């Protein structure tokens, strides 16, 4: 007996393993992966030493021990890997928060987690005079502390989406004010370093910063493979998901921690990169067309967005810009489009 789900599905059953996959989501994910690979190769080929895509691929797989191999593997690969990985993390983080709160506005940059990470990093830079590792720790702690504060302030017999957003926006604004105050107090050179980091840039990211960040992101993503089922079940509301066997508060807390860790670790390494976590899940939702947001698709869109944005920021503009500036512009256009569309629909 086969069930009509209104859209094509692929059923996989092998041994104890079984799954039902929404065909369009599957196709979208494959297409996004291909686009991401292409974007990454383009990103790796551009620079002071322009290379052809074929040369990039040869260099990547170690068949080139010459200068091109060094350029690609040692100089460019960390940055491109960071763009892919951080974009993935931001996209997934946004998708988790937006699903948890059933609100497309509830992304980590909106509910104050990015502001918290930034403020945490600034405290280290301005007051303690900071180093990369210390700054990264500061922003990780800042992000987690903000999330905990938002959670506790919004908690009343469980956390509801709307209250979470309002509290998050309020707290985020206060933290931004704190950041401005810290910058005003700081010495000029310190303030300039802090501002550069605050714009969100992949320039300072090399393997030493990338590896610990990658470990945290990998751990969170593995956890989310398990948690994605309760996450989507929570879309039914607390009562129904409770009745269907979801440990509601425990799952929600674990999901929140994963989402925060993903955003905070990216902010720690590259500064606050705005709008990727806001836009990626919504773009993914439109691409996949099913119910809910596929975490995989949102992550891939995020990775693609950040990789393309960083390529544009580095090479397409007269002066290289921090990638955060480009994502803000793209995100701003997206928000305007979203608002115009909503306005047309309601008019």
């Amino acid at each position, binding site marked *: *007996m*086969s*069930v*009509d*789900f*209104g*859209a094509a599905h692929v*059923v996989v*059953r092998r041994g*104890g*393993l*079984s*799954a*039902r996959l929404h065909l369009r989501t599957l196709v979208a994910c494959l297409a996004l992966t291909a686009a991401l690979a292409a974007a990454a190769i383009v990103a790796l080929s551009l620079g002071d030493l322009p290379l052809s895509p074929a040369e990039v691929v040869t260099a990547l797989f170690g068949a080139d021990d010459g200068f091109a191999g060094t350029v690609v593997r040692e100089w460019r690969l960390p940055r491109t890997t960071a763009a892919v990985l951080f974009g993935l993390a931001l996209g997934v983080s946004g998708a988790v928060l937006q699903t948890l709160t*059933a609100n497309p506005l509830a992304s980590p940059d909106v509910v104050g987690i990015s502001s918290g990470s930034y403020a945490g990093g600034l405290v280290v830079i301005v007051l303690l005079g900071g180093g990369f590792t210390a700054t990264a720790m500061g922003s990780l702690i800042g992000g987690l502390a903000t999330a905990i504060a938002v959670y506790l302030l919004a908690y009343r*017999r469980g956390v509801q989406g709307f209250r979470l957003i309002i509290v998050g926006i309020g707290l985020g604004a206060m933290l931004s004010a704190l950041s401005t105050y810290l910058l005003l107090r700081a010495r000029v050179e310190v303030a300039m370093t802090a501002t550069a980091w605050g714009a969100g840039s992949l320039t300072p990211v090399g393997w030493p910063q990338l590896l610990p960040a990658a470990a945290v992101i990998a751990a969170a993503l593995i956890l989310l*493979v*398990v948690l994605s*089922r309760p996450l*989507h*079940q929570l*879309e*039914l*509301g*607390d*009562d*129904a998901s*409770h*009745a*269907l*066997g*979801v*440990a509601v508060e425990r799952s929600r807390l674990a999901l929140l921690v994963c989402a925060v860790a993903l955003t905070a670790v990216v902010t720690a390494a590259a500064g606050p990169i705005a709008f990727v976590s806001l836009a990626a899940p919504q773009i993914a939702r439109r691409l996949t067309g*099913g*119910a*809910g947001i596929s975490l995989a698709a949102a992550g891939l869109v995020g990775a693609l967005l950040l990789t393309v944005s960083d390529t544009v920021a580095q090479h397409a503009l007269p002066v290289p810009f921090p990638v955060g500036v480009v994502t803000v512009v793209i995100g701003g256009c997206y928000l305007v489009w979203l608002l115009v569309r909503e306005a047309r629909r309601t008019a």
Partner: protein
Amino acid sequence: MTPSPARLRADAISAGYDNATILDGLSIDVLDGSFTVIVGPNACGKSTLLRALTRLLPATDGHVLLDGRAIASYRPKEIARELGLLPQSSIAPDAITVADLVARGRYPHQGVLRRWSPEDEAAVAAAMAATEITDLSGRRVDALSGGQRQRVWVAMALAQQASILLLDEPTTFLDIAHQIDLMELFTDLHRTGTTIVAVLHDLNQASRYATHLVAMKDGHIVAQGEPAAVVTADLVEEVFGLPCVVYPDPVTGTPAVAPIGRARVPSPTAGATR
């Protein structure tokens, strides 16, 4: 009928919200194999009782026991395989299709690796067939009528295949034909061994389908037993504050209630049987 043991029972439980205690030391045995119907006025605590029985609302005092074990000691999925609940109101995720929503009912039977087994598929198909929504299966839930949507939620609860099914006003939004269809569906389920607890507002239907009727008021159980013993004009007046006439249902002989209403004078025949 010998009273069967009760797998699910509440032992002097108290439960409420924030500072308001709604249930205060309430005890109830949900008799195995019964079709228990709970009736009572709005806000008397019927939904609260169902929520306490399914651990949605932890009891602040007393215990809810399932198979002799405190319900708080179960793992969430373990409970969900035994106890199903259709809440009074639920949220359908945006753009979800009917079959997708019904399939969500299989959650307690699934795991990280086992996400869509043949049993899942059979249970979903059977639940949709039983609630007559197979034709709607590919439609979006947000594009259905209130009654169609209610049947989708019932199908989701059926797909859960719990051995005890708690239903909070399952027939709201339904036209009379679909109400009866659904009540007969629950009766069939009851006959095949599922224990059913339903909150209903229609006393005639309650009397017709219940094997055990529980009348609640202000968080307490006022009366319980066979419908014929419970549904009397005095009890309806006591619980609902509604003067009425109780007469035998012409089809089933079970008690049926005709409210008198304030503005009308009872007709001579009705007055005679009162």
